[in-house]
């Protein structure tokens, strides 16, 4: 990678959700649904003294991707850590539901999800959690017709119930900068103690849950540079490939077999996981 390459790159990470959606879709095809001017805000934040964002932190944009009808669901990581509340979850789940319905009517609408999220918005707790369950349902349904592609780029990462959603995707595209994990380091430290997981140990966190490690261990499908064009092109490529022989979340025997190959009492290392998970996968 030389200086020329760097100069030609457009950082995806630096873009907000709306710009990401616009840049991912084919030029000029972006059309936002329930845009901020509709003020479909969280019904729960103002009464807690929290300033609401007009789009509740999710952009739903229809358009085309490589010429095919598509909807991009982009989470704004800067608003409340990208955490998902009632409205933001409904925007994502509702769009997935409509995309599936499109397919049942013969329209091949596919969905691309940009994960920049800490998971459930605790200020809406059970409505966030229920909404995420509906997102999961929406992904599994739509996946029967079209691949569902996820992008985790950073810098917020992809956590909580939304990391499960990422695990349900047909394909997951990651950068080195992102992290994907169920529990944030601070929560593990709170629940299990600092020896279990020191939330200030950044090298440890990235070595185990960073994008490159997830790719190396088969928990992500494509590793990209932080570049808009590359990410867009890889996403289109994933859709062109169509349904994988088996989605990762369907590979039950594979994972049970792999998990039986090591002693859970021993301290885990990134290399061990790469060894256990990294070799020639068969479904």
């Amino acid at each position, binding site marked *: 990678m030389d200086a020329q390459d760097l100069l030609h790159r457009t950082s995806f990470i630096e873009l*907000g959700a709306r710009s990401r959606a616009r840049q991912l879709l084919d030029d000029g095809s972006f059309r936002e649904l329930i845009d*901020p*001017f509709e003020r479909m805000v969280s019904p729960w934040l*103002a009464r807690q003294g*929290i*300033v*609401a*964002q007009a789009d509740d932190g999710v952009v739903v944009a229809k358009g085309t991707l490589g010429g095919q009808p598509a909807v991009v669901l982009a989470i*704004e990581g*800067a608003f409340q850590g990208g955490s998902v509340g009632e409205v933001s979850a409904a925007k994502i789940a509702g769009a997935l539901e409509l995309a599936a319905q499109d397919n049942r009517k013969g329209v091949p609408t596919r969905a691309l999800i940009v994960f920049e999220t800490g998971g459930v918005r605790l200020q809406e707790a059970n409505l966030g959690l229920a909404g995420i369950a509906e997102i999961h349902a929406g992904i599994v349904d739509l996946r029967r017709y079209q691949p569902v592609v996820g992008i985790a780029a950073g810098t917020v990462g992809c956590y909580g119930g939304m990391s499960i959603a990422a695990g349900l995707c047909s394909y997951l595209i990651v950068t080195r900068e992102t992290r994907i994990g169920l529990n944030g380091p601070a929560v593990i430290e709170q629940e299990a103690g600092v020896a279990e997981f020191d939330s200030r140990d950044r090298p440890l966190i990235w070595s185990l849950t960073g994008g490159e490690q997830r790719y190396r261990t088969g928990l992500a499908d494509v590793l990209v540079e932080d570049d808009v064009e590359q990410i867009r092109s890889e996403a289109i490529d994933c859709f062109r490939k169509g349904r994988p022989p088996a989605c990762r979340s369907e590979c039950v025997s594979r994972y049970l077999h792999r998990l039986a190959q090591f002693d859970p009492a021993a301290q885990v290392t990134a290399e061990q996981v790469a060894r256990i998970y990294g070799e020639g996968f068969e479904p």
Partner: protein
Amino acid sequence: MERIALEFDAAMPARGRSLAGVVGSGDLEVLMEANTSARTVVNITTSVDGFRNVWEAVLTRMLGQGDLPAVRIEINDFGATPGVVRMRIAQAFEALAATPGV
């Protein structure tokens, strides 16, 4: 959390609408829409209480001349400095000017 409402004389009503910023730490979201009268109306919701006079000062400096297009501005602020506030409002005006004819 505090709500502040301000009004200013303005020039011809604007056309279109625009958006700048996000409700992130140290940032603000600005929603800007055409107003039907020659007044600019600003509604601010801010996470930081007690700075009404600062908001008045910043916005009066930007809008007090009365020569900008008349708009309704909604601000959702999460602790932005005056510099960031000015930047986002300026961005919103710029994007408004660039909106294709409505």
